[in-house]
């Protein structure tokens, strides 16, 4: 275990990531308490996906430190991986496999075996509401079903922290609401800490206990949705808060690769 705040599931200290001359994260200090749904907001290119990639051990930081569930992401990566679940923005469930086969693969990679694995798969199918279609290929599923399956895959090993990168992108309102309900249910039943990125203000307002708005790799503001709105004015919406703190101008639309990935995901889900 590292020297971290015991009240926090996630902590970063002066976390910095540079890609050549571009600084994606600039000395970021962030504390996310246990059992919190924490939302990261920000325009494309603000550093949201970069911070998730570092915290999930997919990317090395240039400098600074980060810990998840009490373990350093750089020096104790395996311990971190044992304690996290991750739902990428892209569709990560394998369309050429059934839901059960996708769950078997995830369970096996997390070291679940035998009767325990079978029980967790059963549990995951029930949680995602996919029992009746468990033997169907995932490519025949709707976007909402795939997202529910992915959340079940990412949580079947009972992680302490769950990361979701734009979990409801491309989903219709009903599917989006179902995903929200599943996440709230997870938090209530397991006490899991959830870190998600989103562009959806309604989602952030509905789901998140705490929010941070990133702007050019720095934290522009942190607080609860209610608090952030109150600070801006009595009639302020979360969109107003976002515009006020993210410094978005019309010319900024994110990098080509991010926009391509986002549109690709939305197209496949749609």
């Amino acid at each position, binding site marked *: 275990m590292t020297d971290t705040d015991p009240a926090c599931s996630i902590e970063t200290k002066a976390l910095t990531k540079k890609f050549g001359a571009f600084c994606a994260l600039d000395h970021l200090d962030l504390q996310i308490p246990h059992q919190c749904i924490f939302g990261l907001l920000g325009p494309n290119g603000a550093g949201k996906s970069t911070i998730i990639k570092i915290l999930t*051990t*997919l990317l090395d930081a240039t400098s600074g430190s980060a810990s998840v569930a009490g373990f350093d992401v750089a020096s104790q990566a*395996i311990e971190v*991986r*044992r304690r996290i679940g991750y739902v*990428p923005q892209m569709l990560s469930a*394998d369309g050429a496999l059934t839901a059960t086969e996708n769950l078997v693969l995830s369970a096996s*990679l997390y070291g679940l075996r035998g009767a325990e694995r079978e029980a967790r798969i059963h549990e995951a199918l029930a949680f995602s509401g996919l029992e009746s279609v468990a033997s169907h290929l995932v490519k025949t599923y709707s976007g909402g079903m795939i997202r529910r399956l992915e959340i079940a895959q990412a949580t079947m090993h009972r992680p302490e922290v769950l990361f979701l990168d734009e979990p409801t992108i491309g989903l219709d309102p009903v599917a989006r609401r179902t995903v929200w309900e599943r996440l709230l249910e997870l938090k209530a039943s397991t006490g899991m800490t959830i870190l998600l990125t989103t562009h959806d203000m309604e989602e952030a307002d509905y789901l998140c206990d705490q929010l941070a708005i990133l702007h050019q790799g720095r934290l522009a503001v942190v607080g609860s949705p209610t608090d952030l709105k109150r600070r801006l004015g009595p009639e302020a919406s979360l969109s107003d808060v976002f515009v006020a703190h993210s410094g978005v101008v019309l010319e900024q639309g994110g990098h080509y690769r991010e926009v391509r990935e986002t549109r690709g995901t939305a197209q496949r889900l749609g």
Partner: protein
Amino acid sequence: MKTFVYATVAVAQAEILKLMRDPTELLSRAIQPLLWLAVFGQVFSKVRGIPTGNLSYLDFMAPGILAQSILFSAIFYGIAIIWERDLGIVHKLLVTPAPRTALVLGKAVAAGLRGLVQAVVVYLVALGLNVGIRWDLWAMVSVALAVFLGSCIFATFSLVIACVVKTRERFMGIGQVLTMPLFFASNAIYPIELMPGWLKAIAIVNPLTYLVDALRDTMIVGGHGMYPLAMSFGVMTAVFLLLLAIASRLYPGLIR
């Protein structure tokens, strides 16, 4: 160790399930060996310009065509890995505590099993053309091992290329550039002794040469390899282990 084995088996199992659901690729890959053996092989048998010892030219080239079929199929394995990266599947695999080497080995094992299915297809074609195939158990097991190992080598090599070039467009270019030189700079369709010195030097460091040599030794009645069988298998194993180590190191970089 148990974790490593379970993770490898889990990845390989998922790949095999996908292969079983869509065998069209395997069938389409059968066309090329059929053409090489039935057209090229039969015509060149008449020419008698290539010294093949006591073997007919068709018998001589059949192991080479099996090796070629494995190379051509496995060398494009990296495309699937890039596709999986674009879908987010690689991201999900990499956040699990499973050892990276197990993730790569699982893919290689699946490619090895796919190679065995291709070998059956080439055997059927060869049978139809009266190629003198050895059916004894030792020969069959040796061929199966060589095919498995050869597929693992070229699939892992392909994964290494995918991790370096990172895009499908670049990969297709590199894949096309690599396959034919690997094939022609080997003993697949002519003996190494016929090659000029510079080509012989390339052929000796080309793993395809050792695969063909092992197959020629074990697949064909009266066939003899240039190298002892143990040496061919030793070289192939060493090459595979080296590629596995490189691929395991590079695989996480695919998503950056």
